[in-house]
């Protein structure tokens, strides 16, 4: 794919070079008209994104410099006080750690599980197609619904799973109430919900890998596993990168499942950054939106840095645009 694009870009440049003598007069008007047209194509989405994303984003920075509360009272300028306070707030560091732990386990687990299962689904049998649909089902449901179901299934007093496991001799602790197990459980449920989505994208990409590559690999004597590692995985590199970046961003913003299943507890062991923002802004007096916003700004910068780094490593091809 990349080569093809490079070739066509090269052709365009050659064409421009050949036309160089006429360029001065001709190109400028032409370019200007096509530029204007391009901006027209962009106008609707840029207008919407500006009004409803960029302006609020700048607003968030502004609010983080005030001490405005949920009743729109206060609102005096406090400079960087909120950021100074956040820097010395142990719950911010705790939430950062929890967010990182969640992300560092959830993202690789999801992508590895998807790749691992894909390895057994490469023949695209009817059964494989059926499985792809089944694995996708949890992703269709809302995180709220999934979290409610799992909380009830794991409930130590009436839950189905502690009961079933006790019958085979496993005494399940109160997973969501245990400081040790709450986070792994939340990660498990998150992976359970989303791996099917990753799998769908990856298997679609895998089916798009040219059959001739497999044929030549087979001629060279590559077995099924070798074909997977040396043909499939390199062939779907871009899609793996895409999945990594999108699941990474989602993971750093984790909120719903934790809000429903543990509420950040026990002992703040599952409190994430977004959860803490929500708590300070909307749940706990004095509902300091200014302080909550300063943590939100910090989260935003964290995500920006992480994404910039990942993008650099996983989407070599995107540098072109």
């Amino acid at each position, binding site marked *: *794919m990349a080569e*093809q*694009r490079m070739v*066509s870009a090269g052709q365009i440049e050659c064409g421009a070079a050949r036309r160089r003598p006429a360029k001065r007069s001709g190109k400028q008007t032409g370019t200007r008209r*096509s*530029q204007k047209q*391009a*901006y027209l194509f962009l106008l*609707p*989405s840029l207008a919407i*994104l500006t009004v*409803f*994303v*960029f*302006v*609020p*984003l700048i*607003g*968030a920075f502004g609010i983080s410099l005030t001490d405005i509360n949920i009743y729109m009272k206060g609102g005096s300028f406090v400079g960087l006080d909120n950021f100074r306070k956040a820097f010395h707030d142990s719950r911010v560091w705790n939430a950062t750690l929890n967010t990182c732990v969640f992300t560092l386990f959830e993202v690789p687990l999801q992508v590895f599980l998807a790749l691992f*299962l894909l*390895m*057994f689904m490469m023949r695209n049998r009817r*059964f494989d*197609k059926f499985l792809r*649909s089944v*694995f996708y*089902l949890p992703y*269709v*449901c*809302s995180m*709220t*619904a*999934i979290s*409610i179901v799992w909380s*009830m*299934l794991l409930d130590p*007093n*009436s*839950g189905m799973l502690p*009961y079933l496991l006790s019958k085979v001799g496993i005494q399940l602790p109160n997973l969501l109430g245990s400081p040790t197990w709450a986070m792994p459980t939340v990660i498990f449920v998150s992976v*359970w919900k989303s791996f099917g989505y990753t799998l769908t994208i990856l298997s*679609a*990409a895998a*089916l*798009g890998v040219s059959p001739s590559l497999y044929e030549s690999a087979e001629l060279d004597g590559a077995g099924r596993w070798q074909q997977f590692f040396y043909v499939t995985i390199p062939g779907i590199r*871009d899609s793996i990168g*895409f999945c990594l970046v*999108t699941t990474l*961003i989602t993971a*750093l*913003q984790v909120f*719903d499942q934790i809000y429903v299943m543990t509420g950040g507890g026990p002992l703040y062991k599952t409190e994430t950054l977004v959860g803490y923002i929500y708590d300070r802004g909307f749940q706990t007096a004095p509902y300091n*939106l200014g302080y909550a916003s300063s943590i*939100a700004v910090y*989260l*935003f910068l964290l*995500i*920006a840095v992480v994404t910039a780094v990942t*993008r650099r490593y996983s989407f070599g091809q995107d540098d072109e*645009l």
Partner: protein
Amino acid sequence: MKKRKSQLPGDILLVLIMILVLFPLVWLYVSSFKSDIDVIKWTPHFFPSRFVTVQYAYVMKAIPVLRMLVNTVLFAGLVTVISLGVDSLAAYAFSRMRFRGRKMLFSIILLTMMVPFQVIMIPLYMEEYRMGILNTIVGLVLPRASSAYGIFMLTSFFRNIPSSLDEAARIDGMSEFGIYRTITLPLSKPAFVTLGIFHFMNNWNDLLYPMMLTSSAENRTLSAGLAILVGTHSIKYGPTLAATAISVTPLLILFFAGQKFFVEGIATSGMKE
């Protein structure tokens, strides 16, 4: 034959995972027909002692479910249709046209993909309040009428469509909009179906966003309305299960009806070429 044999452990694993995925979902539906006692008793049974619909009756009475269903369909449907149109225009410009600031604009749009909703939620609320569109369907749809994700995905899709076709059309004197409408759009149907289902699903399932921007029960979406029920009766498991089943079912029906488009849709064209 030998190859088939080596597949067996893999198949067993796949079946185990399939059970793990299906069990909670089936449990949800079966349990939503349990009576209050059946739901909370120890020892729990998978099937109710008697199938009853009291939980559904309770939920229907407690909230205006039909009205919320209409709101949800309107909200998710309008967002999907409008954003597909708006985002594909932008994606066309990014993938096919050369203009100043292209690289920078694309990076900035990608950056908005990383803005957690929680960061802009407070300013957005204040903004909608000033514009007077709070608690209206317009106020729900407009902020979602374009998305960085949609632009990003469609741009990568369009870039994988060979440009020889539109170069030929351009030589024949076709306008950029004509190329977009008659060549790029028809070739991108699978991407549109995929992205469309994605948008519809995400907005249907969204909780915090519609909950924050609407304040009256008759303007709420299904998920937000049900969440309030769940919130106020958080101890009662039975109605919660019925409410959860109601909120999940329409999307599951849509998925079963459209899964061919979805799974096969990405499969046949998503990453090809």
